[in-house]
């Protein structure tokens, strides 16, 4: 087990290192952002001085090495725009993202899993058809459009809910609905197919033959066996959501990490972008690692040697 953990940790560090490296060089291809941060009537010698001050006059490989040196110690430099440490700026945006992700994931789990099970248990019936149609629609509707349509219906037309911003529970409804629709459709489809798969197994026939009624068969024999694919995809979704929902946060002016990274990208605030890359990939890798560990509990046959 410890060898497995060590291997996984090594893979994670390598993946994060490669992601940081790729993005570091990618954002520097088009030159430095110094001009963007200076007034229009600036003197050329001031540009040179400012560039020197920020270290952009050094060769790229030197910049890269000093970036890596700092990053190892958790120092990603200061935001070019706000002049404060980039890491704490981005971390301060995490709570809003986590709250939105948790609400959405809870809604996904509560909505999608029952729909998927009902759909599979009543395969070919009216219930199943409704489920299939709803999930097909949910996967086809683009998030940014759904968000805007929800704003229009509930915010502009009915005036029931705030159109954007961060605050009380009413502010959570529209953004989390927007996120839930897509992920719930995906989870419902996977639940349906893996429950169908489990229903066809011999142990289900045995359980039925023993006289256990259908609800008991579903609850005790089918669900746990169908859980691994569901948990896997749920984990992938959680990893994405906790790393910031760029589009939804932007539409609803949600003060989360996704919107912040997008703005940093627009404003060429390199240190903030790097922190964003680091945090989103680290969260994604961590969540997927937890998912892999959960297999041991879900299926005792899984062993990590």
């Amino acid at each position, binding site marked *: 087990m410890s060898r497995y953990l060590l291997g996984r940790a090594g893979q994670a560090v390598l993946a994060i290192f490669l992601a940081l490296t790729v993005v570091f060089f990618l954002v520097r291809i088009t030159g430095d952002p110094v001009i963007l941060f200076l007034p229009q009537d600036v003197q050329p010698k001031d540009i040179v001085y400012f560039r020197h001050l920020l270290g952009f006059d050094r060769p790229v490989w030197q910049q890269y090495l000093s970036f890596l040196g700092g990053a190892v110690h958790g120092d990603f430099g200061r935001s070019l725009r706000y002049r404060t440490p980039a890491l704490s700026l981005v971390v301060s945006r995490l709570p809003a993202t986590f709250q939105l992700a948790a609400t959405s994931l809870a809604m996904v789990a509560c909505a999608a899993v029952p729909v998927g099970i009902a759909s599979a248990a009543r395969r070919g019936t009216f219930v199943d*058809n409704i489920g299939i149609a709803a999930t*097909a629609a949910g996967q*086809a509707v683009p998030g*940014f459009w759904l968000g805007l349509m929800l704003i*229009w219906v509930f915010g502009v037309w009915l005036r029931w809910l705030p159109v954007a911003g961060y605050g009380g529970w009413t502010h959570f409804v529209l953004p989390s609905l927007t996120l839930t629709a897509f992920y719930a459709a995906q989870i419902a489809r996977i639940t349906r197919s893996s429950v169908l798969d489990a229903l066809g197994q011999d142990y289900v026939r045995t359980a039925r033959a023993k006289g256990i009624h259908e609800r008991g068969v579903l609850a005790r024999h089918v669900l746990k066996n169908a859980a691994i*694919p569901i948990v896997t995809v749920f984990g992938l979704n959680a990893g994405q959501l906790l790393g910031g929902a760029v589009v939804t946060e932007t539409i609803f002016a949600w003060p989360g990490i996704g919107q912040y990274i*997008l703005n940093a990208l627009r404003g060429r605030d390199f240190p903030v972008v790097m922190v964003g*890359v680091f945090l*989103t990939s680290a969260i994604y890798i961590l969540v997927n690692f937890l998912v892999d560990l959960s297999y041991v509990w879900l299926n005792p046959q899984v062993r990590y040697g």
Partner: protein
Amino acid sequence: MAESARWLVPRTGALRRGGRGLPGLWRSRTGTLGVAIVAVAVLCAALAPVLAPYNPTAAQFSTTLRPPSAAHPFGTDQLGRDVLSRVIFGARISLLVGGVTVLISGFVGCALGMLSGYLGGWLDAAVMRLADVQLSFPFILLALTINAVIGAGLQTIMLSLVVAGWPLYVRVVRGEILALRHREYVQAAIATGARNGRVMWQHVLPNVATPIIVVSTLQVSQFIIAEATISFLGFGIQPPTAAWGGMVSDGRNYIFFAWWLTAFPGAALALTALGVNLTGDWLRDTLDPRLRT
């Protein structure tokens, strides 16, 4: 993680199991619907100049922000352009991006996946690590970074989608090849002295074709939505070109009093994606029932 690639492919179980080939299509209602929607979208893209009642980029300042009417069934936008005409022309960008990028990323991913799965060794390790990095980095952020760096535009957006899309194929193809490599007919081909290239082309590729076709179809809709999302965020197709994502982005500024600017292009986008997905589901059920459960 590697095993999970299969589950990532969205799926609906087919109620009716179609026969092989086209005849099965008419037995599957959802498949028929999907193919019909895709056909309409392709027709719109191909015959846009004939079908569109107005010039999609010509401003007409005497009729700005008019609600849907007989003259303008989808209304007009802030520059007085006919929304219906722009929606019809928008199909061109979406289908072009969806189709071409899937072909390229599919080609790159399949080639890497075959080499990786067949040759193994350091190449396999390198390709798989690269795919892992790719997957651990949010797709939309990567695409946005590339577009922010190289400059927004059609080519950039397609490049960023190719960069984001190849790992899926690597995983699918590599998995299939690892399973196929030890089959008797492959071993027999190797034993008779066939070279690597011939074994892959003649004996392995035909057996991987079906999952590739199924995965590609479903990726077309993901790419169409991704392009629209990137354009929506302002990093993609630039005005005045009519593209659905950009139209929704423009409409966002007027959502308080001109809903039609947002509603129609977005609906066209969702409908096209739905059509492609239904077609993909039908293809999967017909060609490869194995992928279903």
